[in-house]
């Protein structure tokens, strides 16, 4: 039972000091979670701390590879709109 941080992480440091198990560490190109230490905050907090403060949708996954903050859930931006923007910027 452990979470994973993926490449969309922006290295904002918000999660690192909150982890009760010190499972999160600075790494290049982005922060990582030590799967041996992460227990998803079970027994420590009601909510998993990294997931609760992370500002980036889709940056933290559960063991099944599912985004714990799915697109649209934090910013309120409709995911389709965001995909449009990314496509436009790639084309430019």
């Amino acid at each position: 039972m452990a979470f994973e941080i993926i490449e969309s992480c922006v290295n904002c440091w918000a999660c690192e000091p909150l982890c009760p198990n010190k499972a999160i560490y600075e790494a290049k190109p982005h922060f990582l979670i030590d799967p041996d230490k992460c227990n998803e905050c079970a027994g420590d907090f009601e909510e998993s701390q990294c997931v609760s403060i992370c500002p980036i949708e889709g940056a933290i996954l559960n063991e099944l590879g599912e985004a714990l903050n799915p697109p649209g859930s934090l910013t309120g931006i409709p995911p389709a709109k965001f995909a449009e923007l990314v496509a436009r910027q790639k084309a430019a």
Partner: protein
Amino acid sequence: MELPVLNNVAPDAGGCSAGSCGSTDDQMGHLPEHIREKVFNHPCYSEEAHHYFARMHVAVAPACNIQCHYCNRKYDCANESRPGVVSELHHPVQAVKKVLAVAATIPQMTVLGIAGPGDPLANPERTFETFRMLSEQAPDIKLCVSTNGLSLPEHVDELTKYNIDHVTITINCVDPEVGAKIYPWIFWKNKRIKGREGAAILIEQQQKGLEMLVARGILVKVNSVLIPGVNDKHLAEVSKIVKAKGAFLHNVMPLISEAEHGTFYGMTGQRGPTNEELQILQDECSGDMNMMRHCRQCRADAVGLLGEDRGDEFTMDKIDAMDINYPEAMKMRAEVHAAINEELESKRIARENKVQLVSIEGLKVNKPETRPVLMAIATKGGGIINEHFGHASEFLIYEASSIGVRFIGHRKTVAYCEGGDTCGDDESALDKSLKALSGCEVVLCSKIGFEPWGPLEAAGIQPNGEYAMEPIEDAILAVYEEMRTNGKLDAKPAEQQKVA
């Protein structure tokens, strides 16, 4: 007949010792002496000081504890100039090195702020470590911090330790209903709290933090982002409340919401205010408190005078190559500051003398009431008209009326002239300048080419290069008097052309 310069009303008689009272701007003029002393050389607080003194931000605070709909944490773009954006994040030791390098190179730099790119108080270790080292190593630099306020109450006591005498709180609302439209979530007591409930906690903490700072004698400036249709009707009330609680300055800034920034507002078509809407709101709030109109909404890693960014000169690799002897630099800095203060002081005395003269003449002349006129100024700083029209990347806007001259704000444009022989060919840049000048009847600059002259006149904006290198307020008063003499103030202004 001469009119007084409203921005520069002479200070109360007595109580104003030489050198301690460089600024007598509209927002400074009626402040108590102990506050004026703290802000006269702070470019962000004094309209006059911002022409002479520089500031810098160090990006040591990446984490944030709330989400705002005008912010996107994903973007880190070198070409974007807006709060929350940085190119290079620093650890406190690096940040201090950078500050000392900048202060030694740009002696006009008097103020160091920590403003992000996240929230400084959501990164208390990094923020306070930076302040602690700086207060030891560079005691001649003022320290300030900008926060969303959520963690402010728990850090107020720590803030008082480092001689931080200015704190900025961004307060966009005092009503959780309004807040729910601005803040989708906050992180509070180990939980993500969404919507109205989160906004209510944020508002409560902001107000509590404001009260605690005021109680400890720390100056508080309040920033508000004007979001049309969301808090535009609400900000006058915010102004009233924060003033009652003791904030010394209120800064209403326009929403920046370009779609390409990828923010919620940008992506959902929420527009920013027009220049006119911003001015109307600032006027509405100014009845209630000191308003600040020269804010440039800097990046969280900006370096230099307001409106300029010399960050590229101070990247970490360049700083590592510099050999800084700060104690030596401090001596040189003290000399530069003394020279600037002397200049400000002599300007102040000149103004005082002029105001006295005007008030004597004012007794003899019965001033007819004439309509106000907006004028745009191209300047590089120093309070004089010293920029070519085509080189201006922004204009300062002033209002002249029968009661005097007042500063309204600045409007950004793109420099119309890129230099060289092609100067004047770029129509879209000129269109942008025309748009920035909407509502103005005169534009004063040090020089202006033949090409833009016609379109400006056609748009009802009189170009004027006759006051090159002269003080801004003097020139405006002179032009206003010319307009009066020529009967231009009797008639309503010519209908301005719509500019695309």
